[in-house]
């Protein structure tokens, strides 16, 4: 057949097909275009692991805790917010209308990143330490130095808050010989700052062991001891100043979750410095478990120790008793106020202290506060008495429920909550491919940093419970990465295996980078794929250096 005739014939067949299948062809074309235009937000790559045999010893990388690329990308984003601007600058935090919550983000970033640090405990360069230090410095920004961009102003002295000096019990016209001054920004009345600041300091020492915060932390521990075991003047008194064994904030209402933070800090302090302060919380723990409860045996949303200044009773329904559990003002029946985020937070931080309570209460919490959106999606309510409302506190309830589920080993519920929350936000990577965050600017910009950090919290293998004990003394003698070209590497695994006397390193390298190791007592050798890869070189500083070209490495250093 003539080639032109054949060509015409083929073209005719195609045209006939197109004419007969217009709708089908259009549907295929539109599907391809739509898929191409919406190609994003797929799950990130899993961290590669493998098995290596070096000198007859088996090293299975899957046996060691690991971070993944997205988790490290989110950390880099948070690090950018914390470290890459002065401590009084808040560009990218979008907290203009949420100034009273900013210090909570700083505190929880410390707890979240501590779980990350614990996952790769052999990676302790200044990169991680400066992040933790930056959070501490931001938390402690004073009004005298940073004016109205300081946390002291934003959290305590802001005009939104009518009172910033407190006495107990006579708040309005105190008699200095009878009433106790419970302080200002750094005093007991501000446990919602002091508790967090204390735990941030305790975790800083736990993670980096520098001794820089020991004196200040000790001052807070002694102050809590005075508040909880005496009348405030040093005379022993059961239940402390407020006779409930807890420290109120706002300042005449005590929250179990707020107190769970200094409780955790006190227990950790005891473990790090061989002291015995933890019993100062016994009364308060008992009070939390027996009195500050709702009808399901879950923690209530606040207990009033006395009537706050300027308090207005509800115009209808039951009156608020003083002292007594805060009532739900909308219900009108006097039932306790409840909160999903307070419950999840308290259950998580109190688990290492009273694990039986958390183990018992967790399924009740899911049952009461949880809602099935679908088989693969689950949400936590901010307030089960009013499930119809939804706002920032409801989002917070989900933020706290994710790491709680993770800590309880309930990975399915954690995943279902993540499916619910994160399916509505785009993942954004910075142009240099180093930072990742969830874009919340179209909904509530303030939630962007918390949303991104909560992902990290909900997925990091090491949980709050893992931070409860001090590291063993010998830990500080283990080999670790002390210096590195941090901006060129991705450290997925970095752990000293003390039983096999080997350093497990799983790292991605963007540009040629050097990692320096301290605490090796001999010249170490790096093995990859079971074969000798490199002899580490001795530097003048006494560290041993490993130089890596771009790529991904699973290395055993012996």
């Amino acid at each position, binding site marked *: 057949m003539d080639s032109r005739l054949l060509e015409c014939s083929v073209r005719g067949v195609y045209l006939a097909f197109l004419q*007969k*299948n*217009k*709708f*089908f062809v259009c*549907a*295929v074309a*539109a*599907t391809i275009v*739509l*898929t191409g*235009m*919406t*190609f*994003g*937000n*797929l*799950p990130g790559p899993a961290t590669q692991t493998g098995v290596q045999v070096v000198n007859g010893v088996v090293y299975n990388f899957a046996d060691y805790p690991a971070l993944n690329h997205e988790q490290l990308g989110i950390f880099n984003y948070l690090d950018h917010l914390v470290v890459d601007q002065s401590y009084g600058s808040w560009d990218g935090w979008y907290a203009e209308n949420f100034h009273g919550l900013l210090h909570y983000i700083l505190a929880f970033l410390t707890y979240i990143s501590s779980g990350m640090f614990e996952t790769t405990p052999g990676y302790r360069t200044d990169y991680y330490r400066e992040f933790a230090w930056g959070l501490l410095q931001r938390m402690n920004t004073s009004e005298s130095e940073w004016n109205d961009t300081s946390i002291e102003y934003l959290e305590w002295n802001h005009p939104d808050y009518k009172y910033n000096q407190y006495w107990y019990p006579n708040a309005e016209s105190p008699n200095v010989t009878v009433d106790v001054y419970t302080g200002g920004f750094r005093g007991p009345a501000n446990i919602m700052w002091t508790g967090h600041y204390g735990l941030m300091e305790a975790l800083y020492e736990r993670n980096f062991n520098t001794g820089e915060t020991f004196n200040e932390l000790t001052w807070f521990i002694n102050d809590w001891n005075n508040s909880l075991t005496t009348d405030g003047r040093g005379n022993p008194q059961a239940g402390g100043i407020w006779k409930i064994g807890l420290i109120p904030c706002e300042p005449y209402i005590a929250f179990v979750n707020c107190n769970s933070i200094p409780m955790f800090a006190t227990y950790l302090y005891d473990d790090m410095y061989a002291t015995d302060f933890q019993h100062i919380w016994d009364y308060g723990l008992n009070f939390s478990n027996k009195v500050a409860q709702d009808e399901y045996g879950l923690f209530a949303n606040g207990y009033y120790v006395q009537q706050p200044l300027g308090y207005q009773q509800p115009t209808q329904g039951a009156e608020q008793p003083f002292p007594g559990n805060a009532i739900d003002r909308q219900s009108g029946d006097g039932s306790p106020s409840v909160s999903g985020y307070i419950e999840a937070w308290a259950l998580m931080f109190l688990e290492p202290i009273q694990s039986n309570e958390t183990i018992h209460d967790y399924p009740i919490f899911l049952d009461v506060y949880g*809602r*099935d*959106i*679908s*088989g*693969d*999606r689950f*949400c936590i*309510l901010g307030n089960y008495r009013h*499930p*119809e*409302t*939804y*706002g920032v506190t*409801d989002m917070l309830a989900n933020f706290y429920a994710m790491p709680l589920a993770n800590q309880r080993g309930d990975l*399915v519920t954690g*995943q*279902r909550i993540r499916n*619910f*929350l994160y*399916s*509505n*936000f*785009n993942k954004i990577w910075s142009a240099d491919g180093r930072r990742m965050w969830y*874009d919340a600017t*179209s*909904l509530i910009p303030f939630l962007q940093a918390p949303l991104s950090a909560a992902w990290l919290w909900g997925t990091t293998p090491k949980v709050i419970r893992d931070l409860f004990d001090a590291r063993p003394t010998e830990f500080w003698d283990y080999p670790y990465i002390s210096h590195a070209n941090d901006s060129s590497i991705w450290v997925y695994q970095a752990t000293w295996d003390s039983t096999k006397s080997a350093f497990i390193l799983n790292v991605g390298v963007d540009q040629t980078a050097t990692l320096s190791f301290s605490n090796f007592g001999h010249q170490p050798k790096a093995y990859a794929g079971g074969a000798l890869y490199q002899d580490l070189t001795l530097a003048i500083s006494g560290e041993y250096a490993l130089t890596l070209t771009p790529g991904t490495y699973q290395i055993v250093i012996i």
Partner: protein
Amino acid sequence: MTESETQEAKEVVATSKPSRSSRLYVQSGPLLAWTIIYSILGAVIFALASLIPMPFVMAWLFRFGIVPATAVIAVAGAIRGPVAGFLTGYLGTLIYDMISAGVVVTMTVPAAAWGILGLIVGLTRYDFTKGRSLAKLSVMSVVAYVVALVILLLIGLRVEIYPTLAAMVFFLVPMLTAGIPSVFLLSPIYARAWYIFTVKARPSQLVP
């Protein structure tokens, strides 16, 4: 299969006008058996497709992207009638929920809502060789999808009792914006693909 048999099968599909009752495909033992086989196959394909993470892009509350699984239910209904469509959606959702989370949600009522999607699409008959009929399938799939979502929303607000705002922001709006284009575009593609496959592999199945 010979060319003449293939042509014969195509003609059967193109010209057949069965009665309304025959659309159920349960009138005899063999028909019922095949309907059940189709339902189970459809349910398994739906569950497996649901397990695959799909790309998407959010623009404010609107979610854009292709959701391949949902159209499987619609096409099961279009191929084998309302019973198969319902069972595909219902069983498929149950299988997916059990595999992905190990849960049964709200006494399987939401699964039934997905079944209704397949049921509605299966109520009418389609000729997969004709563009007009494929367009009808697209429209019916969208209608059925919206009905299923409304039922799911009512279950959420009235039975599960979760926040209205969360239902709108995190469920209804994103599901609508991602789901409607998906069922509209993918249902005719799946249907045509099934037709081509069946003509070549098992033309007897084309006989209603």
